[in-house]
C-alpha cells in the first residue's frame, strides 16, 4: 500500500514538472547569412508585466509574425526598470534574430531625463526594424470638478494635484509640461501604473491625471471622467471631440510609441524578413481591430524614421524640461 501512495505522488510530481517545463522552447539558432530566417522558434522579450499595453501589443505582433513566418514567436516577460532590464538582455543576445523585442519610445526619450547617467538606455545599441503604433496620453479630471479645458484649471484657485503612472513616464512628462506651460500651480502624485492612478482620480483623491487613452476611455465614455486635452500632434480617432493641447495654446506634444528592435549588428536580410512579416501582420483585420479596440494609432514607419523620431523627441523633451525647469526625479 505504501508503494501505491508513493507512485501516486511521483506521477503527480511528474505532471507538475511537465507543466512547468512547458514554458521553455528551443530557440532559433539562425545562420550567419540569415537567408532562411527564422530557422527556429523566436523569443520576443517584453519589458513589462503581462496584461499591460506593451505586453498586449507584443503578443499581437508575435501572433502575426508566427502566422506570417511559420515559426513560433513566443513572448517572454522580463519586466523591470521601465523596460531597461529587457533591453539590457536583448543588447547582449546573439544578433541573429532569435531574440527580438518590441520596445517603448519612453525608455529612450523620456526615462533618460529621470535616471542617473549610468542607467540610461541608448537606441544606438540596437537595430531598429520598424515602427508599430502610437499610444496617446490624455489629461483627464473627475466629472464632478466641472472642468472642461486646460483654461479651467487656471481658475481652480488652488494647487492642482495630478496623478501620474510613474516617474520618468510620458504620463508624468505630459502633465508636468502642461502645468508648467500653462502656468498652473500643481503637484505631481506618482502611482504604480495606470490602474491605481485611475482609481485615485475616480475617488477624487487627486484632481487630474495624465493617462493613456486606453486606460481612461471606458470612464470617459460613461461620463465619470472628463478629458481636458490630448497630447497628440492632431486630434485622435478614439476621442475626436477632445482638443489637443496645442489647439488650446499649450504647446505640449508627448506620446508613447513602440517599434521592433534587434540586437546591434543583426544581418539586413533577417531584419527585412521580420519587417515583411510585420507589414503583412499590419494588413490583417485582426490586427487592425486590435489597434482600434486599444485606442492605438498605427505608426508603421521604417526603422530609420523611428530612430530619427526618437532623437528629435529626446532633444525636444530635454529642451522643454530645461526651459521650464522641470525635475522629473524629485
Amino acid at each position, binding site marked *: 500500500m505504501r508503494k501505491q501512495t508513493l507512485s501516486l*505522488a511521483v506521477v503527480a510530481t511528474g505532471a507538475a514538472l511537465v*507543466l512547468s*517545463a512547458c514554458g521553455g522552447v528551443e530557440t532559433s539558432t539562425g545562420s550567419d547569412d540569415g537567408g532562411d530566417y527564422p530557422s527556429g522558434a523566436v523569443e520576443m522579450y517584453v519589458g513589462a508585466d503581462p496584461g499591460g499595453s506593451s505586453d498586449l501589443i507584443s503578443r499581437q505582433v508575435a501572433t502575426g509574425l508566427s502566422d506570417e513566418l511559420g515559426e513560433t514567436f513566443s513572448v517572454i*516577460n522580463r519586466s523591470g526598470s521601465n523596460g531597461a532590464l529587457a533591453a539590457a538582455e536583448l543588447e547582449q543576445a546573439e544578433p541573429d534574430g532569435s531574440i527580438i523585442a518590441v520596445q517603448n519610445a519612453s525608455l529612450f526619450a523620456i526615462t533618460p531625463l529621470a535616471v542617473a547617467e549610468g542607467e540610461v538606455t541608448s537606441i544606438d545599441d540596437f537595430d531598429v526594424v520598424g515602427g508599430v503604433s502610437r499610444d496617446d496620453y490624455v489629461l483627464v479630471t473627475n466629472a464632478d470638478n466641472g472642468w472642461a479645458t486646460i483654461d479651467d484649471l487656471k481658475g481652480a484657485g488652488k494647487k492642482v494635484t495630478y496623478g501620474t503612472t510613474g*516617474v520618468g513616464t510620458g504620463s508624468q512628462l505630459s502633465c508636468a509640461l502642461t502645468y508648467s506651460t500653462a502656468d498652473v500651480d500643481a503637484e505631481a502624485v*506618482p502611482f504604480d501604473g495606470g*490602474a491605481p492612478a485611475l482609481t485615485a482620480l475616480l475617488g477624487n483623491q487627486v484632481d487630474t491625471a495624465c493617462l493613456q487613452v486606453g486606460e481612461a476611455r471606458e470612464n470617459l465614455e460613461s461620463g465619470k471622467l472628463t478629458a481636458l486635452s490630448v497630447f497628440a500632434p492632431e486630434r485622435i480617432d478614439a476621442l475626436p471631440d477632445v482638443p489637443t493641447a496645442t489647439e488650446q495654446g499649450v504647446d505640449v506634444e508627448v506620446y508613447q510609441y513602440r517599434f521592433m528592435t534587434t540586437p546591434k549588428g543583426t544581418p539586413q536580410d533577417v531584419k527585412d524578413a521580420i519587417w515583411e512579416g510585420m507589414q503583412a501582420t499590419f494588413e490583417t483585420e485582426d490586427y487592425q481591430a486590435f489597434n482600434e479596440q486599444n485606442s492605438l494609432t498605427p505608426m508603421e514607419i521604417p526603422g530609420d524614421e523611428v530612430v530619427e523620431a526618437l532623437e528629435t523627441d529626446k532633444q525636444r523633451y530635454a529642451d522643454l524640461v530645461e526651459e521650464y525647469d522641470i525635475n522629473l526625479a524629485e
Partner: protein
Amino acid sequence: MDAFLDGFAVVSQPENLLYCLIGVLIGMLIGVLPGLGPAATMAILLPVVVTVDPVAAVIMLAGIYYGAQYGGTITSVLLRLPGEASSVVTVFDGYALAKQGKAGTALGVAAIGSFVGATFSIILLSLSAPLVAGWALDFGPAEYAALALLGVLLIATIGSGHPVKALIAASIGLLLATVGRDSFSNAQRFSFESMQLADGLDFVVVAMGLFGVGEILYNLEERHGKAHVPAAVNNIWPSRKELRTAAPAIGRGSVIGFFLGVLPGGGAVMSSLAAYATEKRISKTPERFGRGAIEGVAAPETANNAAATSSFIPLLTLGIPANASMAMLFAALLVLGVTPGPQLLEERPDLFWGVVNSMYIGNVLLLILSLPLVRIFVRILRVRPAILAPITALITILGVYTINNSTFDIFVMIAFGILGYLMKKVGFEPGPMVLAFVLGALLENNVRRALLIFDGDPTGFLTRPISGTILALFLVAALFPIVQAVRHRRRAPVPDETTQREDVLR
C-alpha cells in the same frame, strides 16, 4: 445580484469545478501533513497554476487554503499531531475524545462545524464585500497608509508566536521592502548597482523562499522517521445530545472566526485559539476541557474555517492580504496579471464572484469527502519526508524560474529559503516578515503620496474621517497590550494559557 448569479455560472463550468475539487483535495492532503501549510503549498504550486486560466487558478488556490482547515483536524484528533497550526487547540479535546473511542464523533462534529462556520462566513462575505468595495473609492493614499500601518502592528502583536520576535521579523520585512528603485525620485536604494535588484526584491520569489523552501528544509529535519499509529474511526455521526452541546459553540465560533479573519494579522490560527479560549471561559464546566469536551473541538474548527473564508474580504476588496496564505494568493493574482484591489469587483466580476461562489461548492465537497477519505489521508503520513522533500524542492526551483525567466530569482529564493529555515529554527515565524514586506511598500508609497496631496501637512491624516478612525484604532491596538501588562502585573501571577499553547506549536 446578477453578477452574483453569474458567479455560479462561472463555478459550474466543468473546468472550474474540477480545479475546485483538485484544490480542496490538495488542501485536505497538506492539511494532514504536519508542517506543510497552505502558504507553502501555494508557493510551491504557484508556477504550475500560472499556466491555467486565472479564475480556475484562484479557485484552486483558495480551495487549498480552506481545504487545509478540514485536513488539519484529522491528524489532530487521530494522532495528537496538528496537521495545521490552526488545528493546534483541537488536539486537546479531539485526541481525548479519540482515546475514549469517540474519534468519529470528534471528526463528525468538526466537519459539521467547519461547514457551518465556512458557510456563515461566505454568506457574510457575499453581502459585505460589495459594500466594502463600494467604499473603496473613498480609500485614498492616506487611508491606505493608515491601514497598512495598523496591519503591520496587528501582524506583529496578535499573531501566533512571540510578539517581540514577530515585531523584529516585521521590521526586517519593512526594511526589505525599501530595496530597489524609489518610485518617487528614481534613486536606487540598496541595489548595489545590480540591474536585478533595481526594481527591488520580487515579493513572489521572497515568499516562495521563506514559505516554500524554508518549510521543506524545516520539515526534513523535524519529521524524521516518526511512526504514527492512528486511532480507529467509527460511528461518524454525533448523537443528538452531542450536537446540542456543540451547536452554541459552533455559532460562537462562526462569529469569532468571521471577525478575526478580517483583521490584518488574524486568520485561521488566531481565531481557533480565541474560539477555544472563549468556550472554556464561558463554560459552566471548564474542567471538562482537555478531557474530551465536544465544544473544544467544535468551536476552534468552526472558527478556523470561518476565518479562512472571511480573510478573503480585505484581499479581494482592498488588495490588502490579512495573513500569510492571503499574501501568497495576492502573489498568485499578481502573477496571473490580476491586481487585487477596489477595482477588482468591477473589472473582473467573473473572477470575484467565481472565486467567492466556488467556496460554497468547495465546502460541500469537503463535507462530503473529508470523512470517507480519512483513512487514505492518514496513510499519506507514511510517505517519508526524505522522498517528498527533494520532489517539492525541484518543483519549487523549476517554478520560480518560470515566473520571471530569471536564474537570479532562483538564488534569491534559495537565500530566503535558508533564512526562513533559520528563522523557524530559532522561533521566528516568517509570516510577519513576508506580510510586512508586502505592506511596507504600500505604507511608504502611500504616506508619501498622501503628503504630496496634503501639500506636506501631516495633520491631513487625522482630519480625514476614515484615516482618522483607522489611526485611532491603531492607537488603541498599540496601547492595549501595555495597559493589559500593567494590570496583569498588579494582580497575582496566574499561569498563562497562551504560553502553554505556544509550547504545543513548537
